[in-house]
Every structure is written in structure tokens, then in C-alpha cells.
């Protein structure tokens, strides 16, 4: 029986190194891309200042130097200005606008998922419904997003980026993220499978015999697995935000990452990727805490006394 603290411990360590590992990997990958932004804005063939621009953007001293400088500034909350996505705008402003939007989008998309999970755990949602959810899940997020984008554009026309239309885009984005790409179907069937497997355990049978409710008994044991599944779902949603935000033109982190990567705006890409990594790290910490809490709860639970007192029901 391995020590209970190993698994949450590993998660906490991962949560700490993630926000450092991800920007480092991204910097190496981006550096391998052919050409650089200074060449695009001021091509050496037609403009004399390429070297000067590269020096100003710290592109002339290798990947490690750029990464170190960027991390140092980022630690002080200074992310520099966007080179090409929103030329001249501080990346900090872009993050301030994008992170809340993406979090709202993901949380809104979680609502149907959580409801589905509770419904399947408690049996409110019958297994028969799974087929229907799978059919809806069939439609790729791209198609729902396309329909939503066209509808908003036609409905609001010139006003399609004012607060009213943006709220509609968020709602549509949440629905698309939550339902399409099989997200909802996977959540429901995943939780149902977990509880089904748990219900076959002996202790649940005993709990039934003792007249206790199975859910209360199963919950502590499945809590870590549930946390794991929930984290997987959120990561899946986060990954889906890139496509949904770009198609539905939502000013979120995914859209920022896509635009930054296409235009090789290194400052924006690193900031967006690090933000993603931080969200992942937070999820890891939450899962670790749940595991620790369950482990502590299990250790403090009363030990089962010897056979006679344990089963008054049997005696009756």
C-alpha cells in the first residue's frame, strides 16, 4: 500500500513547476520557427533598422536570454507591449481583458457538465439518455460555433461587438463548449461508469444492509477520481476555448494565443501560455487538496468494532 501522500505530493510539485516549464518549452519551440517578428515588420531588404528592432525586443541574444528577461519582467507584472497582435498595446491590458472572459466562458460551460454529472451520479439521468447526448456530442464544436457567429453577425450587424452582443457570444460559446465535441456525453458517462464500478464494491452492499444511503458512503472513496475527472473536463474545455473563441470572436485567452502564435508575437504567446499553465496548476492544487482531505477524513473515520456489534440488522 503506497504512502497516501505521494500522489497529492507529486501533484503539488507539478503545480509549482508547471508555470515555469510551459513558458520555457514554448520559448524553445517558438525560437525554432523560421524568421522572426523584427524581420517581418522591418524586412532587411527594404528597411534599415532590423538589427536595432531585434535588439530592442531582446531577440538578438538567444532563446535563454529572451526567456530569462521575460520571466524577470513577468515576475514584476511587466509583460511589455504587443508587437503585432495589437501593436503598441500593453500585453497586461490584453491579459486583463482575456483571462476573466475565458474563465467566465469555462465556468459557464461547466454548469451543464456538473448538472449532467450530478444527474448521472444520482440516477436522475437514466442511462437510456446517454445515446441522445452522444448524438449531440457528435456535432463538432466548429459547426455550432459557426452557426452562432453567423447568427450574431446577422442579428447585430454593426453592433455585434457591443456588450449586448458579446454577452450572447459568451452564452453561445458556453453552450458550444459544454455540449459539442462530446464534452457533455463524456462527463455523464464517465461519472456514471465511476459510480457503477464503485457500487459493485462489497462495502456498498454492507452499507445497504445497514440501511445507509450508498451515495454518502461512496462519495469519499470516489472523490479523488471525481476530482480527477472534473480536472480532465476543465482541461478539455480550456483546450476547446481556442477554436470556440476564434470562431465566435470572443476576446479570450484562446483567441489571444491563436493570434499571437500566428503572428509570432512572442510576448503575447508567452503571456497567454503561462496564464493557461497557471490555471492548470490551480486545478492540480485543488485535486491534491481534495485527495489530502479525503485521506485525512479516512484516517480519522471510526474503526469498525468487532463482528457482533457491527451488524444489529443481521441479528434482527
Amino acid at each position, binding site marked *: 500500500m503506497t504512502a497516501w501522500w505521494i500522489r497529492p505530493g507529486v501533484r503539488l510539485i507539478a503545480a509549482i513547476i508547471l508555470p515555469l516549464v510551459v513558458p520555457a518549452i514554448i520559448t524553445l519551440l517558438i525560437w525554432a520557427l523560421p524568421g522572426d517578428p523584427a524581420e517581418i515588420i522591418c524586412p532587411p531588404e527594404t528597411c534599415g533598422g532590423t538589427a536595432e528592432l531585434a535588439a530592442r525586443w531582446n531577440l538578438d541574444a538567444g532563446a535563454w536570454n529572451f526567456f530569462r528577461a521575460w520571466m524577470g519582467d513577468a515576475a514584476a507584472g511587466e509583460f511589455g507591449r504587443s508587437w503585432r497582435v495589437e501593436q503598441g498595446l500593453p500585453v497586461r491590458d490584453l491579459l486583463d481583458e482575456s483571462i476573466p472572459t475565458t474563465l467566465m466562458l469555462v465556468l459557464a460551460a461547466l454548469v451543464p457538465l456538473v448538472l449532467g454529472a450530478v444527474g448521472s451520479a444520482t440516477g436522475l439521468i437514466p442511462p437510456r439518455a446517454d445515446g441522445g447526448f452522444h448524438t449531440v456530442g457528435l456535432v463538432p464544436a*466548429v459547426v455550432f460555433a459557426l452557426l452562432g457567429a453567423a447568427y450574431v453577425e446577422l442579428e447585430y450587424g454593426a453592433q455585434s461587438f457591443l456588450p449586448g452582443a458579446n454577452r450572447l457570444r459568451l452564452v453561445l460559446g458556453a453552450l458550444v463548449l459544454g455540449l459539442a465535441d462530446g464534452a457533455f456525453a463524456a462527463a455523464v458517462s464517465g461519472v456514471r461508469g465511476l459510480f457503477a464500478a464503485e457500487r459493485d464494491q462489497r462495502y456498498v452492499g454492507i452499507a445497504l444492509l445497514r440501511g445507509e444511503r450508498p451515495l454518502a458512503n461512496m462519495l469519499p472513496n470516489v472523490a479523488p*477520481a471525481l476530482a480527477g475527472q472534473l480536472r480532465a473536463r476543465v482541461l478539455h474545455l*480550456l483546450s476547446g476555448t481556442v477554436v470556440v473563441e476564434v470562431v465566435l470572436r470572443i476576446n479570450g485567452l484562446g483567441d489571444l494565443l*491563436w493570434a499571437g502564435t500566428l503572428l509570432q508575437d512572442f510576448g503575447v504567446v508567452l503571456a497567454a501560455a503561462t496564464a493557461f499553465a497557471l490555471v492548470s496548476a490551480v486545478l492540480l492544487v485543488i485535486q491534491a487538496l481534495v485527495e489530502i482531505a479525503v485521506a485525512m477524513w479516512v484516517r480519522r473515520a471510526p474503526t469498525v468494532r468487532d463482528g457482533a456489534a457491527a451488524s444489529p440488522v443481521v441479528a434482527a
Partner: protein
Amino acid sequence: MLALGAFALLAVAAFAAPAHLVEPEPSRSFAGPLDAWPFGADRAGRPLLEYAQQGARVVLGPALVAGCVVAASSVAGGLLRCVGDPRVDAAVQGVGEVLGALPRMVVILVTALLIPSTSRGLLPLAVAWAVLASPGAMDEAAAVAERLGGARFVEALRAHGFSWTRIFLFHVVALNLRPVVVRQAAEVVTQVTFLELGLSYLAVQDAQASFTHPDSLKSWADLLYMGYPSIVLDDIPTEHALWTGLAMVALVTAIAKFATSAARAR
């Protein structure tokens, strides 16, 4: 049987896919399924069947490879848990946590841009996606192996005189890990299909070269992009393209579903 049948259909489509679309035939522009069997035609009068075939060719290979990668890592996860060495378990879990936590689309995007535009394809992206999905699969397989009894189950079978290979390959993998491994692989096959559709559409929308296939091939995303206006706008004769695209996606998902239930049946 259904899974094999659907898979065979898709494989034949992919195999028969033309390298390039046929010559345009304006007289059959946007012809319906009845006029241009079986799926109708596009604006230039070319059959949508070729779009479906080329889309299958783009998706099938890489999706299967990704499925195999996830299946392999899932089996590895289960077997390692049967070994029962805590240090190995911790190491596997540590790597899994970091890989699993990486924002998947971030890595996919940067990988997509790393590949020179003339030799872009779905395979490297599918493998990258599979590698990122492996930790989850290994976790689940390990949980199943744990429930079996892990190392104690193996020792019991050893006591019966079975050889190591028979224990691991037949008893552990074939009998017990099979459902979860097949389900994980099938899920990744579907996810890779949806990934291809998403990336293909984003390339079309942002006037970029395609990330997932050479531009001479069409993707199912082209069918969906051609068809979606017929829903929102009137007098746009492209509904048949939308249904064709959705039918293709349904085929892939059906294969995954049937394979999963087939693995669980025995």
C-alpha cells in the same frame, strides 16, 4: 461487427480518395444528392463524395496512430501498476501530471506552426495530442489494475504456474485492461477528428495555409464551412454539404462507440 463494418467503409473511402478533385462541371453547380449521387456537388459541380474521401484520407491514418499510442501507454500504465514499485508509480505519475496539465491546444498550435508549410500534415499533431492524452489513459488503466489487486494478483497467478508473458498479456491486458484501453483509444480517435476539423476551419477563416493537410486535399471542415450558411441564411443551396460533413463525423464516432462496446461485451 458493426465497428469493423463502419471502419471498413471509412478505410475504403480513404483508400479510394483521389489525389486531386476532378475538373469543374458548372452545369452541376450545387447539384443535390439525387442529381450527383451520392452526396451532391459543390459550387464548381464537383461531387462531394470526393471531399468525403479526401477528408477520410486526411483523418484516418493519423487518428488510428494516435489511438494506438494512447492504447500502448494505457497498457503500459496498467502493467507498471502491476509491477507495484512505488518509485516507478510516483515517477509515472509525476511525468503524467506535468504532461497532463500542459494546455493541449498551446502545444498543438506551436507544433503546427513549427512544421514547414509545404510538408504539413495531421500525423505529428495527432501524435502530439496522443502523448498529451496518455497520462489520463495511464491513470485509468492503473486504477483498473489496482482494483484487480495489482502485484498480489500477479503473485497469485505465478503461484498457479503461469508464465510471466501469459499473465501480463492474457490475464492482465486481454481480459481486464481491454475495455478501458479500447475506450481510451476510441475516445482519442474521435478527439483527433474534431481537432482536425477545428484547425482546418481556423486556417480557412484566417486565410492561412492548412495545418493538417496539403492544400490539394479537402477536409471535412470544407464541407461544414460550405454548408453552414444554408442554416442561417435563406436561398443558399448547400444544406447537402452540411449533412454530408456531419455524416462523416458520425461515422467516426460510431466506429469508436461500437469498438468500445465490442471490447466491453465479452
